[in-house]
């Protein structure tokens, strides 16, 4: 479904700030795979997500989705296939527009946008039933401005909007990191539910090791722009946090130093 081959990216090349962001990344996702990605700050997780979404293009290497090479496709064209939820709850929705209008924008992701009403009675019913899944009573507040919602509500809405049109690939970039624990749990459960329902091929970056272990069927660990560990479907269920710490030590010959990675 998704294939990254030999992806390399260097920021600020040939300056003192030169930084190797991605170093020969190879990753292959089968349809329905749910891969969680962990790694300390600066490991290249977000850069990799941006490569897939098209916000950044690799120096060399190819990105292909469903067999099509999309390496040079601009972000807005690639987002036909890709749903995305950002870390910032404010990033995934338009605050001055209503819930209904936001959902309508998500709904017309796949089709060419035309001069017809973004929402009509039929669509509105569909929007309502979809919003009901969130259990946040948003279906009865269709005309509320999204800017009035709390961070958790906005993130839940972003998640629904991202998965609305059954994208080929769902990218979740630390989408629970900015929320308080109870809200984060709600979003985590919702993620599980929506991904399972749509059988979506998913990549999720997280700082929370427990979350990375609980969710998904595969796990990869990144460090210094490389994928240093890849846990397959058969080994993932028995994985624990100490396992991960040990693996990291074995590979890198140093202790994992990020408290944040442990505690989330």
């Amino acid at each position, binding site marked *: 479904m998704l294939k990254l081959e030999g992806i390399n990216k260097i920021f600020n090349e040939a300056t003192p700030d030169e930084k190797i962001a991605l170093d020969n990344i190879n990753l292959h996702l089968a349809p329905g795979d749910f891969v969680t990605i962990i790694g300390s700050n600066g490991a290249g997780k977000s850069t990799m997500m941006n490569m897939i979404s098209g916000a950044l293009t690799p120096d060399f290497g190819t990105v292909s989705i469903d067999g099509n090479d999309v390496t040079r496709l601009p972000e807005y064209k690639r987002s036909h296939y890709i749903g995305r939820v950002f870390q910032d709850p404010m*990033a995934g929705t338009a605050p001055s527009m209503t819930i209904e209008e*936001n959902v309508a*924008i998500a709904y017309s*992701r796949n089709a060419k946008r035309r*001069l017809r*009403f973004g929402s009509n009675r039929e669509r509105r019913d569909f929007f309502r039933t979809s919003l009901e899944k969130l259990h946040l009573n948003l279906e009865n507040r269709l005309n509320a401005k999204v800017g009035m919602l709390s961070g958790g509500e906005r993130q839940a809405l972003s998640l629904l909007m991202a998965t609305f049109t059954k994208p080929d690939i769902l990218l979740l970039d630390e989408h629970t990191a900015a929320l308080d624990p109870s809200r984060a749990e709600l979003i985590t459960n919702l993620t599980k539910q929506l991904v399972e329902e749509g059988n979506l091929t998913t990549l999720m970056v997280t700082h929370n090791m427990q979350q990375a272990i609980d969710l998904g069927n595969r796990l990869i660990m990144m460090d210094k722009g490389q994928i240093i560990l890849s846990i397959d479907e058969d080994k993932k269920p028995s994985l624990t946090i100490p396992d991960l710490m040990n693996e990291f030590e074995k590979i890198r010959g140093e202790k994992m130093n990020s408290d944040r990675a442990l505690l989330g």
Partner: protein
Amino acid sequence: MFAALFGSVEQGIIYAIMALGVYLTFRVLDFPDLTVDGSFVTGASTAAMMIALGYNPILATLMAIVAGFIAGCMTGLLHTKGKINPLLSGILMMIALYSINLRIMGLSAENAIVKPNIPLMNTDTIFSQFQSFWSNLGIDTALTNFIKNTLGFQTAPSTWGTILVVLIITLIIKFIADWFLKTEVGLAIRATGDNKRMIRSFSANTDSLIVLGLGISNALVAFSGALIAQYSKFADANMGIGMIVIGLASVIIGEAIFGTKTIFRTTIAVIAGAIIYRIIYAIALRIDWLDTSDMKLITAVIVILALVLPQFIDKRREKRRKLKRRAERLGEQNMAQGGNHLA
């Protein structure tokens, strides 16, 4: 006085089309587009040039709209493809249009390359065409009699046809704008002004949406310019100076008075704002020690006040609330201390 105000309302309704264009860029797209000063004149000069050459006024007005659309798209391309800052793209286009407008007006004369103005004194305009149809209906005489005899005013407007036709045009544009902003394309344009990152992740090309939005906005501005040229029977290279500030003043005044709860209401507010601005203008002109040329200064002051006053009022309110709470808290403490002394 009644006749003077009546004229202001007529003009206000025409300027409202320009204000709707400004609303589309400033508020919806969040793009401070200064092209307006130029594209207003582009609309006026294109229409005036074609009318002077004997074309049908309606065709001339349509061409003015197209010219404005192209001018707006150019600003959009400067910004999106040329990566030039929004304000600067607008200023560059405005300056470029000044020369272009002189050239457009020059087309109306055989012996000149450029012309600073075109008078339309003895030519047909949209308004004169409508007037010839309207005066046959006899409604004007009836209304004039009503105003003079029943309401007791000394003077009555010479015709009601103009206000009717501009009102219909402006309302049609308002309803089209309301509808457009609710279509799939319109929603995407609004989201572009609201959160570019989000709308890109929903497969919308923000660059083309910005170009389209600026094109539509300046098409409206040029439309308004074309109508003003026909209303006042001349086009002039300098008639657009400060137009953007007038548009902004209309948007701000309207929004402050009528609110922005829904799009339907906001577009009404913008139209009403444009009319109110014209009335203020007319009243200011009647003050003895003010000169017509002071109007730009007054406009600037109106906009500054409209931008600054709300902040000031909010701050005052906040301060008063805090002082009140402090007084209450102090009162409680004094009560408690008083109690201790007694005990």
